[in-house]
């Protein structure tokens, strides 16, 4: 086994045992990046020298606490002071934030070593990472397939062994969907659990930062660090974070699990459905109570999301006007032309589409029919979950209707590509925690199972995910990449 192949907790053991050093781990990871990056293309920036410096610093301290010496990768919408943060957009191609996100600061303080910034769909808008202004990332399981998105770089890098864990952001499925397509573990916590400070906003009421990792234990451990109150984010609640790792006891005996019939219906690939049903049987074998339930407004989540998300985005992306940061149209003779010239050049098509969609949904005469109505539908969706959670501890469903699709395959067909998020969006609309873990393979590609929990009950989600993982070996199967 090479160091880059190991999980975070395995690396921690080696460091604690004095068997390896952070510098060796970082070198191993950098070598892996050098070896496979041409194929996977998950990094926008590799912070090679900075990473080696920090690793040596950590090694010099002599002991390894917390995440000391463990390499990490961050989605490129997470601001890192002094390190280029592009959101995979021409707009921010040269943007160097003068401030640090809370999540990256917490990991940095724990001693984790930033190795690079990861590719994504521009401003987190997309489901394939093909909307990156720079290049498309490829699925390590099949280089002709997409890794999913928008945190495609974060998922592909973990799957390809380029990084032991990464952070992504999830507004409508952007952690869970690429995690499913790349066969890794991806958790979106409850809205308000993790600080959004320093994370470039797409849709503020839906965005959450989460963890992509090789297994559930790593995921829980990293979440433990980034979760919890932050006075810099008014929506990041002051609520104690339980010890997630301590709760991983492998047992689901007596746990009440619902599977919503709407998530297994039309549009869901048969093998995906079968694999998730088999997983549910596994849970039954492990002593859980598994029953069918209903989330009747599920089909309305996606259309409502494509009004609310863009509406918020239309305001969030208004700060990109060429005045204070980002690119600027220097040919314009007046300020209005400078604004529109800058935005025309700086934004890609999907970003423009969503800005226009959101602008329209908020515009005079359409606000009530579109934006306000979508807020009401959001209430109905949240209420559906509340009802089911009166009787059940968790909800299990497929993460996505299909496995990863081909690069370029869904280009141009908006609704088809939006459908990738049909099973993940409702969870964001209700603000709930949801994890995707591998539950099998079909056609050589991984399939993800989604576990949805009650608000702020990530602990139960992790516990259930861990029990399944311990009783299966899907997480141990790695993609084979040809090494140069």
């Amino acid at each position, binding site marked *: 086994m090479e160091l880059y192949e190991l999980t975070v907790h395995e690396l921690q053991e080696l460091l604690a045992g004095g068997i390896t050093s952070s510098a060796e781990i970082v070198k191993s990871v950098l070598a892996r990046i050098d070896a496979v990056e041409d194929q996977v293309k998950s990094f926008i920036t590799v912070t090679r020298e900075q990473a080696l410096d920090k690793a040596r610093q950590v090694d010099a301290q002599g002991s390894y606490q917390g995440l000391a010496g463990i390499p990490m990768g961050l989605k490129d*919408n997470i*601001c890192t002071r002094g390190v280029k943060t592009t*959101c995979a957009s021409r707009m*921010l191609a040269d943007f160097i*934030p*003068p*401030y640090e*996100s809370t999540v990256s600061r917490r990991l940095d303080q724990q001693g984790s070593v930033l190795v690079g910034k990861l590719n994504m769909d521009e401003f987190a808008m997309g489901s394939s990472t093909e909307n990156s202004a720079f290049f498309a990332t490829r699925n390590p399981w099949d280089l002709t397939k997409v890794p999913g998105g928008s945190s495609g770089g974060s998922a592909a890098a973990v799957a390809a062994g380029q990084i032991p864990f990464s952070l992504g952001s999830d507004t409508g499925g952007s952690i869970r969907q690429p995690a499913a397509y790349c066969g890794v573990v991806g958790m979106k916590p409850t809205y308000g659990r993790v600080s*959004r*400070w*320093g*994370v*470039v*906003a797409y*849709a*503020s*009421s839906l965005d959450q930062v989460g963890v992509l990792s090789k297994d559930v234990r790593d995921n829980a451990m990293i979440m433990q660090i980034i979760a919890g109150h932050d*006075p*810099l*984010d*008014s*929506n990041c609640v002051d609520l104690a974070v339980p010890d997630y790792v301590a709760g991983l006891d492998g047992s689901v005996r007596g746990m009440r699990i619902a599977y919503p019939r709407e998530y297994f219906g039309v549009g869901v690939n048969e093998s995906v459905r079968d694999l998730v049903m088999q997983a549910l049987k596994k849970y039954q074998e492990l002593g859980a109570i598994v029953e069918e339930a209903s989330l009747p407004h599920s089909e309305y989540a996606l259309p409502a999301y494509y009004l609310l998300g863009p*509406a*918020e985005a*239309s*305001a*969030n*992306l*208004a*700060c*990109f*006007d060429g*005045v*204070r*940061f980002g690119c600027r149209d220097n040919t314009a003779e007046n*300020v*209005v032309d400078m*604004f529109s010239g800058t935005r025309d050049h700086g934004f890609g098509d999907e970003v423009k589409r969503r800005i226009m969609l959101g*602008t329209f949904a*908020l*515009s*005079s005469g359409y*606000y009530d029919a579109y*934006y306000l109505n979508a807020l009401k539908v959001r209430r109905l969706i949240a209420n559906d979950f509340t009802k089911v959670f009166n009787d059940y501890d968790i909800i299990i469903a497929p993460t996505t209707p299909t496995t990863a699709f081909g690069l370029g395959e869904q280009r141009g067909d908006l609704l088809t590509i939006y459908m990738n998020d049909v099973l993940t969006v409702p969870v964001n609309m209700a603000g709930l925690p949801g994890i995707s873990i591998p539950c099998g393979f079909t056609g050589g590609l991984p399939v993800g199972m989604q576990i949805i929990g009650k608000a702020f009950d990530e602990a139960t989600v992790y516990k259930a995910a861990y029990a399944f993982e311990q009783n299966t070996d899907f997480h141990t199967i790695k993609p084979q990449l040809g090494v140069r």
Partner: protein
Amino acid sequence: MSPDYEIVIGLEVHAELKTQTKIFCSCSTAFGAEPNTQTCPICAGFPGALPVLNRQVVDLAIRAGLALHCEIPAMCKFDRKNYFYPDLPHGYQVSQFDFPVCKQGYLDIDIEGQKKRVGVTRAHMEEDAGKLVHQGDITTTPFSLVDLNRSGVALLEIVSEPDMRSAQEARAYLEKLRSMLLFAGVSDCKMQEGSLRCDANVSVRPFGQQEFGTRCEIKNLNSFRALERAIEYEAKRHMEALEDGTELFQETRTWDEEKQMTRSMRSKEEAHDYRYFPEPDLPPLFISREWVDEVRAALPEMPEQAQQRLMEVYGLPEYDAALLTLTPETLDFFDRCVQEYPDAKTIANWMMGEFSRLLNQTNQEIGDSHLTPDHLVQMLRLVDDGTISGKIAKTVLEDMFNSGQSPQEIIKAKGLVQISDADTLLPLIEDIVGANPKVVEDYKSGKGKAMGFFVGQIMKATKGQANPALVNELLKKVLDSIQ
């Protein structure tokens, strides 16, 4: 103004709330700092930065609301108002749209002795934009510079009902509003520094017509005088248009102080569509009755109460009481004087007379001048005990006003002590009388002017320091003793 038309005016006033820090970040709000030295990722609108509400802003907004007799709803929230402008870093302004912090209040104004009630529709919290610096005029400058020190400073926008019917009423409303905000301690209300800004909505309609005429919003009203002038100008423009049958457009206009006229700010752009929607980064605000009661209990004495007190406790006329309660500093000055000196009316006279004249002359606020209540009281006592005359007192006051010295110091330094010594005055009087036999004759023949001539001469000779009563007494004696 033509008697056939009625002017309808509503005012939108932006008052900067008196906080140490901005509404959503911890940057200083101090006025006059070097450009962009009071900014951070939050108030400069950087991606990923998030707002956190300053509690003091809400406290002050509630306080202002109570001073303006507003209702404070149990729930309010923030919204984003979307528009692009180079001084607006986020591309939206965080404001309050459908659930403001204060609604439905009023202000009573005094128009030629008549009380008039002007409705306050609402007051809401919002963030200020940055400052654009042009080379000369906004319409001709080749480029502009953006300073974001002011971006994110907390404002309270107070919107009146269209209840005012003349420029004078609008001015009275703004003066009263300013006084209320000053007394409530919520804003410095310095129009020159922009901590109180006023936009006027003006329309004109034929008397008796129910519907409002075409409304124009006038911006850039930086003084009470500008407000009055701009309304008068705009009303006249509307009336002329109505007379001529020219079309009026609903538009935003700016007051040109130099040319004393309003100008259209309309560009080729179409009408605004602000696309307000709830600010997702800020949880809603719930203001409990206990919170409101706490603020109410801590509310300082307001001008109306103070005016009442001055009339009842000190027996001052309504006119005096009104003038002495224009600003909290004026009232405080009076209150401090009257604690030490029993004659309230005399204090009032000096404050409204000589002191006020000096303030106007030097364009100062009462707090800016060197004159202290203590010094004024000492001076009044010196008049009472005959050390100085009332006339000399005016000179002393002006000196105190300019230098901040005590009256004793000034009198001593300038030798202004009143001459109340008959032994000093008598020879002087005898000399002057002796030198003017013709005037003595006039006196004897009963010409009243003669007496005045002698007093004048004596005062001149003593540089005004002679005790006038004693001079009169002695002069009479000397003249009557002459056969």
